[in-house]
């Protein structure tokens, strides 16, 4: 088979797996697990083959037009360069891990068949986005991911949090997708084609008439999908979904799509300096804000969610300084360690019976209950905090190095201000990232108090996946940073001395600050008992998690916040803590700015429809109704009356005819 055929099979196999899974889910439950895992595994093998064939050389291109559409042609096109090949490997790898993990995590879940099929569909849609060389086909995958995320985030639809979160995720991403669609049309009108290659060559020849407008419109969609400020609010709430889904959404699919899209079409954005500055500001605000918010979250998964937003901010920042190699490098290494963090967090939540860090900090011995999760999570947190030699260090340093390169004004198309914004925000965020990673680790695994309950060993399918993911988290960055430039634009990704020292130093400072605060506050933990664990700790992991999410708000008054005076994050943030826990009240602001006006407008429309329009309709109906009432009186039910009326009518007609006939 040619490489092209293999590449077509990569998104197709998970799609077929999803369709068969949905069809056979009820009738043949025995096939559900193989149907979930095997197509994704095969897609991983094929994606690896495609990547080896492509080898960072010339992009594989092919296209076919199914039918003429009359205007700008829409083609089924493949465009696989080094970025696409590697990102596809990451997507298939993480999806395979998630599918294997899910067989253990949702082993008693009655809705597992549809869940697994939707995860396959999600994977297939992301692979389509990655390989597609046509923007409309890319958009199809983009939107399929949106609807899949809606279903998967709402998997525990018995809980109101999950229902609200799924609708919010869908609406917020759609809010970005509308300008995105308009932006695509504007781009294609200028370029005369939806093909990526044609668009890029048009941009290279300066054929783009409104680069700033197109860039900003496309950025809306990217911000929605990749959870960048100001459209990031859906992501922390999406934690109401099952943990493997969070891992999938955060590591490989959905949020990666936005960054990947910008990386693929970076010249379009570079055509306007204003867009690059907007991108830089967006990334910077996202990074710093999410770092602060992550420090204040009580739900272990919400900490990780904000950390995802922050790491995506790094990628956006790298794109804003025009280095898509660094962005995709960070995307790849982040994909590995963030998937690991989420999957390990799922194990921890199952073992602890709660998702609250405050409760975990009052439980001792959790690390002995789940040693696999403890060790792998330590690796992943070190990678997240960018401590050398873990893989996060190299990718993050490549971003900071690119930003530093841009500050000096040497980078083409990139204003120096964008470089400064990204560099400063990136360094501040390095400190914050290390701080919240340390806080998470200390609270989860160094708690003191009652012994953690023993629910037996975790399923093998869950723990093995953790170790598999730990390998790239540990070593990917160190081994890849020399060879990756050959796959990407050729720009060096090696860490530079200045940023390495600055970044690592700040990370160490952040970690030590939290450690010092924790040493001071840990004694307070014993004085303030807190606790709420799931009702059925012996159930399967998915059940425990659903119950933990449902129990958090009643126990602590909020899904994100716990009144824990022993929290080192609280000591560090001071008065900012309360606001950071609420995500700086952005949700409340959106509620005032958008939700309430929309609801008010809806009730106005309802009033107009019910009271104004309907009044006219009822008024128009009143006269016929009156006439009808009069005629109804004639319906006496007496047949002879009817016949009399008939006779009278006949006589009248006959007389009339006679009169007319005689001419009287």
């Amino acid at each position, binding site marked *: 088979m040619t490489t092209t055929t293999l590449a077509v099979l990569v998104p197709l196999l998970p799609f077929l797996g999803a369709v068969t899974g949905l069809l056979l889910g009820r009738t043949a439950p025995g096939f559900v697990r193989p149907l979930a895992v095997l197509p994704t595994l095969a897609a991983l093998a094929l994606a690896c083959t495609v990547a080896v064939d492509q080898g960072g050389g010339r992009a594989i291109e092919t296209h076919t037009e199914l039918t003429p559409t009359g205007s700008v042609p829409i083609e089924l096109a493949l465009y696989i360069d080094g970025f696409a090949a590697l990102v596809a490997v990451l997507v298939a790898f993480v999806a395979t891990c998630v599918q294997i993990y899910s067989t253990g995590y949702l082993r008693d879940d009655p809705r597992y068949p549809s869940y697994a099929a939707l995860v396959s569909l999600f994977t297939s849609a992301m692979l389509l986005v990655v390989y597609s060389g046509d923007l409309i086909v890319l958009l199809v995958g983009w939107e399929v991911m949106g609807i899949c995320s809606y279903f998967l985030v709402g998997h525990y639809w018995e809980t109101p949090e999950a229902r609200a979160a799924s609708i919010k995720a869908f609406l917020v991403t759609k809010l970005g997708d509308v300008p995105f669609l308009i932006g695509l049309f504007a781009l294609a009108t200028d370029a005369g084609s939806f093909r990526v290659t044609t668009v890029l060559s048009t941009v290279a020849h300066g054929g783009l008439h409104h680069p700033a407008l197109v860039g900003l419109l496309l950025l809306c969609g990217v911000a929605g999908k990749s959870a960048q400020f100001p459209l990031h609010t859906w992501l922390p709430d999406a934690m109401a979904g099952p943990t493997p889904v969070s891992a999938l959404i955060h590591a490989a699919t959905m949020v990666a799509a936005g960054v990947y899209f910008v990386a693929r079409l970076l010249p379009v954005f570079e055509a306007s300096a204003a867009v690059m500055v907007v991108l830089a500001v967006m990334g910077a605000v996202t990074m710093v804000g999410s770092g602060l918010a992550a420090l204040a979250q009580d739900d272990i998964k919400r900490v990780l969610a904000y950390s995802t937003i922050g790491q995506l901010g790094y990628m956006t920042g790298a794109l804003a300084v025009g280095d898509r190699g660094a962005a995709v490098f960070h995307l790849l290494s982040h994909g590995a360690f963030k998937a690991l963090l989420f999957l390990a967090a799922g194990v921890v939540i199952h073992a602890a019976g709660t998702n609250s860090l405050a409760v975990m900090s009052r439980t001792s011995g959790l690390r002995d209950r789940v040693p696999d999760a403890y060790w792998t999570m330590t690796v992943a947190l070190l990678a997240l905090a960018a401590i050398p030699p873990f893989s996060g260090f190299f990718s993050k340093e490549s971003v900071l190095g690119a930003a530093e390169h841009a500050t000096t004004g040497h980078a083409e198309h990139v204003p120096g201000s964008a470089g400064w914004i990204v560099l400063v925000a990136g360094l501040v965020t390095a400190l914050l990232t290390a701080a919240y990673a340390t806080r998470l680790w200390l609270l989860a695994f160094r708690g003191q108090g009652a012994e953690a309950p023993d629910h037996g060993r975790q399923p093998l399918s869950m723990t093995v996946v953790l170790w598999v993911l730990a390998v790239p988290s540990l070593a990917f960055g160190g081994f890849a940073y020399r060879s990756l430039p050959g796959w990407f634009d050729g720009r060096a990704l090696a860490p530079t001395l200045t940023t390495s020292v600055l970044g690592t130093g700040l990370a160490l400072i952040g970690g030590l600050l939290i450690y010092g605060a924790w040493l001071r506050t840990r004694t307070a933990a014993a004085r303030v008992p807190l606790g709420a664990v799931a009702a059925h700790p012996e159930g399967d992991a998915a059940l425990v998690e659903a119950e933990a999410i449902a129990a958090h708000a009643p126990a602590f008054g909020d899904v994100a916040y716990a009144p824990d005076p022993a929290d080192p994050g609280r000591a560090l943030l001071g008065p900012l803590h309360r606001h950071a826990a609420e995500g700086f009240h952005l949700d409340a602001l959106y509620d005032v700015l958008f939700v309430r006006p929309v609801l008010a407008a809806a009730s106005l429309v309802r009033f107009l429809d019910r009271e104004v329009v309907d009044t006219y309709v009822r008024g128009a109906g009143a006269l016929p109704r009156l006439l009808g009432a009069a005629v109804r009186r004639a319906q006496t039910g007496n*047949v002879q009356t009817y016949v009399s009326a008939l006779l009278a009518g006949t006589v009248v007609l006959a007389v009339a005819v006679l009169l007319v006939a005689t001419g009287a």
Partner: protein
Amino acid sequence: MHLADPAVLSALLFCTGLYGVLARRNAILVLMSVELMLNAVNLNLVAFDVWLSKAARDTLHSGQALTLFTIAIAAAEIGIGLAIVLAVHRNRGTADIDRLRDTAEGHEDGTAGTPTDAAADEKAEATA
């Protein structure tokens, strides 16, 4: 015989039948009156047929043929009509047209109200 004699007779017969249809309360008598009206028409048909054939305008005697049709149809009609009246009488215990007012506007008690109505009717008949 002049054409006016059968015509007047048929008009009288028709009026008698019409009065019966409009005024009688018993359904069987109403049916009989309908027969009267039909036969008045038959008489007219035959009389005019003869008059027209005398004038040699119609030599096919279509009037008489039509009369045979009418008689056959009237036989079928009275058969069905009497069967209906019999069924109604068995069902309701009465063949009084004034009481058969189920199609009246405002007669809402369709199935639920019928037994009580029938019972009330039977009671009224018993007392009367």
